[in-house]
């Protein structure tokens, strides 16, 4: 992990998380909230790898902060959600491949905005440079041209994430693995339930609410459905010689339309919650980059739905270029932004379940 040394503030973030966890480990009042606390009690000391693992287990539900007798203004000034958020963000940059790209997007929303503009411009140029011979969308940008652009980007994103994930996986190999149980927690967001507390403390002080969990699930399932729609379209195109556009009663549309709606509701909801949430309990810097990625998800869903609704109108070419630009930016940014949390969170949950089973008496 050579990137660690290159990023300023890395040691400070981990030192603060270590200090916080040592206080938590002597207290343990929060043990019922989420998986972080039982995992913490299985350790007496916290090496950098332990910190990365616990930070990726943390869902930033903030229950522990509001329950904390040592939170500021107490002289211990304990803010575990922030301490873990900082280490988490740091760990993604450290594990990312190639490292220089991680640093380009880590802190700022502006980087993503520029990327989006560039991606849209690239699509615009593509539409002008190649003349379509097919029908519908492909009259504007031929299928072959789309594949030539998106296939490499998609494969690169997959490769980059696989390298990062493998680095994390190796660093935590001693913990064991329980994939089925870990995936279950990832897909149902058990850890945002706050134990018996009915939700998290994200948007309104110490009030428990399921809003963040629900909006996150809408985003997650919306994204997966949209992805399934693209995959179904690819299969239809190559396997059955049935190119787009598709009717409403077709796999791509049955996945894509609800997926787009869920994505817009979910990402929009998450942005709304984030506006109300206390920024002092999230990352010290880089919150703008987190939000920018959610905006990008929202735009991807919105332009996709608009494209479907207005595909027969003169707005179609502009919307197609916008939508493809958003999708391109999304995949380019995937391994280097907040979006990558899904990978590390899932791996951390699989590791945590593995560790639980290994250490059971």
């Amino acid at each position: 992990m050579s990137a660690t040394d290159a990023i300023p503030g890395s040691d400070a973030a981990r030192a603060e998380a270590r200090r916080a966890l040592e206080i938590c480990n002597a207290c343990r009042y929060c043990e019922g909230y989420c998986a972080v606390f039982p995992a913490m009690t299985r350790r007496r000391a916290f090496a950098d790898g332990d910190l990365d693992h616990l930070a990726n287990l943390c869902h930033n539900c903030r229950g522990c902060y509001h329950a904390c007798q040592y939170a500021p203004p107490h002289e211990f000034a304990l803010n575990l959600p922030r301490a873990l958020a900082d280490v988490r963000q740091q760990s993604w940059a450290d594990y990312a491949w190639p490292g220089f790209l991680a640093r380009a997007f880590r802190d700022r929303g502006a980087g993503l905005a520029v990327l989006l503009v560039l991606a849209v411009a690239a699509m615009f140029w593509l539409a002008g440079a190649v003349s379509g011979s097919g029908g519908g969308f492909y009259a504007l940008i031929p299928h072959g041209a789309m594949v030539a652009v998106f296939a490499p980007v998609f494969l690169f994103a997959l490769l980059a994430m696989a390298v990062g994930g493998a680095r994390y996986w190796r660093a935590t190999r001693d913990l064991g693995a329980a994939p089925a149980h870990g995936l279950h927690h990832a897909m149902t967001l058990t850890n945002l339930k706050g134990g018996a507390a009915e939700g998290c403390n994200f948007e309104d002080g110490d009030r428990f609410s399921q809003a963040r969990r629900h909006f996150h699930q809408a985003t997650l399932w919306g994204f997966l459905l949209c992805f399934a729609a693209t995959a179904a379209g690819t299969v239809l195109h190559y396997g059955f010689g049935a190119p787009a556009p598709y009717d409403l009663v077709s796999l791509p549309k049955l996945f894509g339309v609800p997926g787009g709606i869920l994505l817009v509701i979910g990402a929009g909801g998450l942005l709304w919650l984030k506006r109300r949430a206390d920024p002092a309990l999230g990352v010290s810097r880089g919150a703008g980059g987190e939000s920018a990625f959610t905006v990008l998800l929202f735009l991807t869903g919105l332009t996709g739905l608009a494209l479907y609704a207005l595909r027969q109108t003169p707005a179609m070419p502009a919307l197609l270029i916008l939508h493809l630009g958003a999708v391109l930016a999304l995949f380019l940014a995937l391994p280097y932004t907040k979006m990558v949390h899904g990978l590390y969170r899932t791996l951390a949950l699989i590791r945590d379940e593995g560790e639980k089973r290994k250490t059971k008496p």
Partner: protein
Amino acid sequence: MQAGWAETDWDVLVAGGGNAALCAAITAAERGAKVLIVESAPRDWRGGNSRHTRNFRCMHEGPLGPLTGAYSEDEYFDDLLRVTKGRTDEDLARMTIRASEACLTWMQDHGVRFQPSLSGTLSLSRTNAFFLGGGKALLNAYYRTAEALGVTAVYDAEAVHLDLEDGFFAGAEIRAGGETHRVKSKTLIAASGGFQGDIDWLTRAWGPAAENFLIRGTPYNRGVVLADLLDQGAEPVGDPTQCHAVAIDGRAPKFDGGIVTRLDCVPFSIVVNRDAERFHDEGEDVWPKRYAIWGRLVAAQPGQVAYAIIDRKSRELFMPSVYPPIEAGSIAEMAGKLELDAARLEATVADFNAACRGGRAFMPTELDGLATEGLEPPKTNWARPIAEPPFHAWPLRPGVTFTYLGLKVDDRARMQTAGGGAAANVWAAGEVMAGNILGEGYLAGIGMTIGTVFGRIAGEEAAKHVRN
């Protein structure tokens, strides 16, 4: 802060902002009373000592919520008798114990969430229900519930004087925002805690040694309401010269160190005073049972300080403490770090080691009978030589949990007057009256039981008084 609170005519004035105060306020508000809570702490520090609590001791006939098995009235009362050595009011105590069973559901109905007892805690899943997130989470839930019922809570507001005439409460002087307001209310519920935050008072009661005591909880329990009511003829209860103290890490903050300053190393250590001498059997019993006596033991030592020393073998046998231990490669080096006489510490350790005869299996979680021979004071369990470096040490100081002096009450939480009889419209709940039941010692989780039971009764009685 809500505007106009000082000018409103209130039905119920609750002095204090902890568990008992909130239980009283919620109960009174549910019965239609207009309730004002005056909490002397700022909002971030609200809740008195309740913010440091984590569980509630509860009688139950069978499995109940998070509680396993059964815990009968008699067993609960016997546990109380044992810790108080009989210094309790049996009728009041038994009433409280019986009432605790219904409290659990009431607490859940008013927003409190419990958790299954997990690792690292004392094994109390049968007798004590643990709050998810601890006492501060419980308080957050109660404040939300109270707010929804229309209760007004003002922070940084201290009841500095209560107008009491022949046991009749007529109004209060509340200091808030640099001004003193005269506030009218038909009734008063005193739920303002003990006086352990007032070091001068502690020093008067205990002697100069109290200046070296650490206060485990809130600095806002200064006993202002308690002193004011006692001055005006309220009947006192409990030993005014005593406070409950445990041995905590000597490096803890003066106030509000809470749970993380506790030290669990004593049974596996030798404990020496400033003169590098041992002074008590460190292995007398399992730690939860002996935890409470060490505050007093350390308070009696010169300078109110002691040092627990272990060697490498015992490092992993107890919960980690928040402050890292002082480490040394030899006993002489340790003496230097602790500023003790090296020769005397070496002699004390050598005498102890020589008296460790072994011959039985070391069993850290039960009384293993592994005792010293011919040593005074003896160590009667877990006696293993302190011989393998590195050595670790923790400084110990007395940490005050609460004071015993309080207001005498009857079984309807009515404050009693020195002249005999109950005050007409004053009730008391929580630590300010816990001395009625806890004459000495402490039983884990009973403070929250007393606060919840008497808080609910006080709220109910005050609301009833207002209606009539």
